[in-house]
């Protein structure tokens, strides 16, 4: 099938691009494919949303989506010790950290609403189909994508009702896959888009939704923390948002440049909830949702070239997350809109399959650049100086921007790629995490049960270990098998067998967070898309 624009991923960036394209030029044919079985099923975000971009794209979202009901009314920031929570005076907060005017939302639900809006404008949206490959023309330009085969058996042989993939051809292809998309990764490598940019940086974010006692519920109250239970040398922190219907979102982020291979981000999150300040809120509540997803943390200096022959990167695929604000969805929407304007102009001029240089040139001067530039040193400082000193310095740097309009430090570089950060297990001791109590803290499997994750059983394992022997020698023997700890879904298990350790891959558990693809020390694991429709089924995430 031929379209003007093929968009991969029905998240905020992809849907914003689709909507803006139809707003600009209603006659354009626009298709969006989405690997989740239903729109929003793979969307997970905090989320306190900066509404500015959505207000510009579709102002009626406020009245029609039902997601603009909980404005932020009370915004706190804490440093945690094991027993205490020390509030940071609001006075110290740089203005750009303010959440005034923002809303506590479910980004998945916003995407559901945006998708319906896009369809009403004539955008074709097909959930349940994963884009497995880029399609190139003879000159090597991207001319679309191909969906994956369905109905292959475990060995990759076509089964009884095998359906081959289908090519979706477009004048331009928009990769809106979110963080570490499989096609984005290929495009970045093939077209050397990361050349000249800093190495990308990532975190892993966890989110649970809790139904709390009405007496504990303060809609619009939000708080963030850093410190306990993470050691000062490991970046990360928590978020806690009171939303609608007596529901509270509690989340935790661990920067993936952590060094100790025994660290388990999942268990750090579980432990975090046992802090007296958090336990009090949740202890009589019920956990109703769980999910996890990698987060882009490289910021301004890690953004790759965004345009390549026939295609562009937008949203988190481009890395547009503001780390100290832990927000990216506003930039995702903005980048979708920005690229749509440039695409509409190019298509109007009869262009196709060329490199949309104007978009790549425009983002730094746009609202996205203005959002990311002043905070660009926070992450490098945090990684280099640890949490306390790093955040203090990052704060000073943001103040410098606020007061003098420029940084004192220039633009700092990122130290190294996240997969290079791990140190051999021999240099560390295993961490004894408390056993889950099944009430406030949980194990991985009872957690992913809530994510509604499923993959059809009889299909090729979509987590591809290039060299099993190398995985054993390196990931297991040197690093002590960190995959069993960094994976938030229990996909990886090292089983000690008489014949030697064996990496058991429970691919059906995968919630598509992409952390393995990022953190595996030798980059020997590749996340590939499973059959469309597989993965988590997030409801209100």
């Amino acid at each position, binding site marked *: 099938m031929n379209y003007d624009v093929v968009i991969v991923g029905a998240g905020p960036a992809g849907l914003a691009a689709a909507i803006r394209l139809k707003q600009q030029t209603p006659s354009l044919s626009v298709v969006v494919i989405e690997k989740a079985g239903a729109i929003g099923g793979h969307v997970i975000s905090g989320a306190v949303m900066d509404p500015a971009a959505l207000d510009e794209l579709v102002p009626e979202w406020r009245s029609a989506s039902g997601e603009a009901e909980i404005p932020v009314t009370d915004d706190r920031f804490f440093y945690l010790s094991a027993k205490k929570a020390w509030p940071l005076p609001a006075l110290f907060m740089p203005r750009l950290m303010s959440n005034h005017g923002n809303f506590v939302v479910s980004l998945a639900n916003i995407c559901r609403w945006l998708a319906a809006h896009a369809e009403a404008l004539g955008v074709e949206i097909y959930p349940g189909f994963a884009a497995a490959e880029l399609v190139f023309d003879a000159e090597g330009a991207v001319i679309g994508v191909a969906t994956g085969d369905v109905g292959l058996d475990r060995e990759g042989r076509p089964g009884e009702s095998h359906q081959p993939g289908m090519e979706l051809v477009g004048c331009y292809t928009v990769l809106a896959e979110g963080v570490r998309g499989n096609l984005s990764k290929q495009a970045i490598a093939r077209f050397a888009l990361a050349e000249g940019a800093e190495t990308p940086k990532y975190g892993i974010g966890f989110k649970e939704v809790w139904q709390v006692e009405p007496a504990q519920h303060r809609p619009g109250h939000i708080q963030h923390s850093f410190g306990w239970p993470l050691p000062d040398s490991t970046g990360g922190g928590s978020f806690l948002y009171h939303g609608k219907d007596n529901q509270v979102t509690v989340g935790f982020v661990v920067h993936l440049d952590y060094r100790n291979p025994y660290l388990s981000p999942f268990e750090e999150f579980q432990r975090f909830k046992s802090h007296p300040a958090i336990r009090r809120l949740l202890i009589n509540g019920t956990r109703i949702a769980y999910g996890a997803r990698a987060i882009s943390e490289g910021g301004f200096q890690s953004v790759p070239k965004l345009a390549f022959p026939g295609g562009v990167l937008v949203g988190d695929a481009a890395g547009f997350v503001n780390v100290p604000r832990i927000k990216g969805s506003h930039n995702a929407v903005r980048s979708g809109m920005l690229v749509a304007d440039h695409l509409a102009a190019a298509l109007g001029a009869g262009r196709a399959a060329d490199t949309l240089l104007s978009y790549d040139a425009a983002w730094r001067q746009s609202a996205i650049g203005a959002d990311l530039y002043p905070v660009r040193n926070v992450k490098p400082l945090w990684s280099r100086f640890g949490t306390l000193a790093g955040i203090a310095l990052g704060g000073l740097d943001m103040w410098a921007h606020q007061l003098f309009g420029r940084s004192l430090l220039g633009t700092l570089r990122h130290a190294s790629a996240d997969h290079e950060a791990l140190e051999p297990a021999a240099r560390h001791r295993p961490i004894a995490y408390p056993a889950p109590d*099944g009430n406030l803290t949980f*194990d991985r*499997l*009872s957690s992913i*049960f809530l994510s509604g994750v*499923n*993959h059809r*059983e*009889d299909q090729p394992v979509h987590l591809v270990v290039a060299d099993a022997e190398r995985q054993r020698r390196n990931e297991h023997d040197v690093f002590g098998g960190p995959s069993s700890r960094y994976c938030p879904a229990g996909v990886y298990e090292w089983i000690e067998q008489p014949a030697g350790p064996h990496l*058991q891959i*429970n691919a*059906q558990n995968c919630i598509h967070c992409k952390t393995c693809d990022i953190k595996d020390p030798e980059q020997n694991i590749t996340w590939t898309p499973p059959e469309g429709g597989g993965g988590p089924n997030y409801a209100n995430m």
Partner: protein
Amino acid sequence: MAILLLAEHDGSVLLDQTARALAAALEIGSDVDILVAGKDIGAVAETAAGLAGVRTVLKADADDLDHQLPEAIAALVLQLAEGYDTIAAPATSLGKSAMPRVAALLDVMQISDVIAVLAPDTFKRPIYAGNAIQIVQSSDARRVLTVRTSAFAPVAATGAAAIETVAFAPAEARSRFIEEQRGKSARPELGAARIVVSGGRALGSAENFQTRVVALADVLGAAVGASRAPVDEGYAPNDWQVGQTGKIVAPELYIAVGISGAIQHVAGMKDAKTIVAINSDANAPIFQYADYGLVGDLFELVPQLTAALAQTRS
């Protein structure tokens, strides 16, 4: 408040479900008649008459009722319906097939799979595969319901009800019995088995799975299940997998051998009436769900159990 209960039998023997459904019926009201329908079912009617609390057994013995095809049974029930304000059947293949026909022709809405009687017109029933329980009240003048028999204990066989013969006036039959393959596979189907024996990763090999899990299942006439690990590792076939991504089972007895109790597995068997766990790890999560737990080496305990059961069964 008379109640008509359709008996469940296999043509020669009254099945346990009848006594259990009778317990539910007696919670609705005291005037319970049991309808035994079929061909040459005198002995079945005798057994039914012996159940405690039965008012009368209605015996419908006719060629046209042979094999208890649902259309004929429904027609018979409708002929008798006049005198009853509640008509019930165990939620068996027959009850589930015949009773909605009865309900539709009486123009009432059936209440399926009753698990508790709260009032003569108010019942509990599971929805969403047991993930939620509904309390429903019927506004129909007559109630038609099927009873999930595992939720009720059978009444004792201490009664002595009178047996009345009822005539059946068949309409033209539009469906014909051809054949029946009882227990076609020697092993019951996993989803419908009364007893399931499941093995987990601790078995370690296909051979161990056969000699431990399958051998125990053989003695019990049970279906064989597995957690995900043996399936993933290839020593149990795909269609044995019990759990969130496999089959959901709710047998009367579930024996988990060497299964740690990952939630995905538990999701597939937590509705079993009685759960037994045998595992060497006393901290295995499976023990949180087990009615009876036995900690120890399965390679010792399971053969012991198999031997003990073989002895009691013979």
